[in-house]
């Protein structure tokens, strides 16, 4: 029987190694796998590269992982935002490396990794400092820069409903980066609010089929978060 459900956080986090590239879903707080981030903190892997749209907020979750000195490098589109205090402290102290990526290029680099495309050309960021050092080539007279796929060793994903095959349905704007990150990592770990019997998820509504998913941990919230 195929069963990707795991019973404990320790099982969900098993085998994540030091030095891993960890893709973390979510946009702001919505669709962010908070419980799995806490699980990663407890699991202990360090020297991580984190790929996430934002660089953490407050002192919990991703910000806490960073504050513990476990993140060597962060790849994101929006490092500096209201409440990104830990990032600011680490960055100004030279204790974290930063790669800023335009949000669409970030999403596409993840998608490319999941789709077996090693690199692609895009006009985004041409003529800006984010194009510094990148190969440039014109298509139809328009300059483009070369961007590389961004695969992860691990993806931490949040979903609304899942079955034991790992088929996922998301809720509203909590979908965001989660499906592309699920595609882009060798080990995709999902926290899900509701477990469903196999066959009860509408196949037309499944946004991430279980082929992209390795482990599913049931993490019901006491109440919806936002």
């Amino acid at each position: 029987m195929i069963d990707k459900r795991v019973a404990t956080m320790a099982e969900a986090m098993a085998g994540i190694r030091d030095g891993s590239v960890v893709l973390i879903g979510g946009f702001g707080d919505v669709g962010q796998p908070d419980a799995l981030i806490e699980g990663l903190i407890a699991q202990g892997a360090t020297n991580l590269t984190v790929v996430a749209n934002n660089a953490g907020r407050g002192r919990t979750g991703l910000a806490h992982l960073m504050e513990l000195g476990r993140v060597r490098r962060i790849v994101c589109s929006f490092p500096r935002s209201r409440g990104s205090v830990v990032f600011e402290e680490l960055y100004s102290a030279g204790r974290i490396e930063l790669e800023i990526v335009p949000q669409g290029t970030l999403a596409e680099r993840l998608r490319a990794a999941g789709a077996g495309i090693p690199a692609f050309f895009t006009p985004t960021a041409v003529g800006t400092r984010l194009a510094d050092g990148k190969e440039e080539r014109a298509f139809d007279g328009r300059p483009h820069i070369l961007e590389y796929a961004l695969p992860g060793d691990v993806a931490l994903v949040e979903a609304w409903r899942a079955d034991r095959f790992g088929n996922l349905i998301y809720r509203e704007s909590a979908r965001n980066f989660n499906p592309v990150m699920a595609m882009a990592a060798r080990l995709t770990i999902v926290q899900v609010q509701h477990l469903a019997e196999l066959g009860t998820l509408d196949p037309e509504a499944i946004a991430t089929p279980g082929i992209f998913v390795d482990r599913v941990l049931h993490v019901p919230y006491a109440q919806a978060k936002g």
Partner: protein
Amino acid sequence: MAGFSRPEIAARVARDIPEGWYVNLGIGIPTLIADYVPPGREVIFHSENGVLGIGPAPSPEAVDPWLINAGKQHVTLRPGGAFVHHADSFAIIRGGHLDLCVLGAFEVAENGDLANWATGRNDAASAVGGAMDLAVGARRLWVAMEHTTKEGTARLVGRCSYPLTAPGAVSRIYTSLAVIDVTPQGFSVIETAPGVDFDTLQRHTAARLIPPE
């Protein structure tokens, strides 16, 4: 000096958005624009985090914690709305499917260069978000902003002094003082705000303006 207030700038932009357009609105004055599109005119608002059909802010008791816009504010979904994942959301942007994007700016140059994400070479950790994708990908890029900084420094310039978001991207600018097109000849004034004459406008602009016909 008279001129448009921030809501009036937004209302002025809204007047020029026809029915049927798919539109992405940036943070700041652009976000206000949606409130000024008449309810009977069907314009579909897109947000980078994968929402098509964004509606107005909910009342506090009707907040849906799963539904936010790119500014991370709670929003509603209009009938006919849809959710997509981030790569598809940016395929909408980068694939040239949006009719219009309206962004705020620090500076716009007379050749259409946009600077709206970083304030200096030393500011290495600036948040770019989706600005570079929107500036390059939308079919039209308009800017809505105050005409000058709080200190009175011009934002419409010959060449941007801040790091670029995209070269040659802006086609129209709505400010507190005027509506201005970016043309091959430079900034071309379409109209001035009530109580603002051309000479006043030129004094607050660091590039040559072409007067309205």
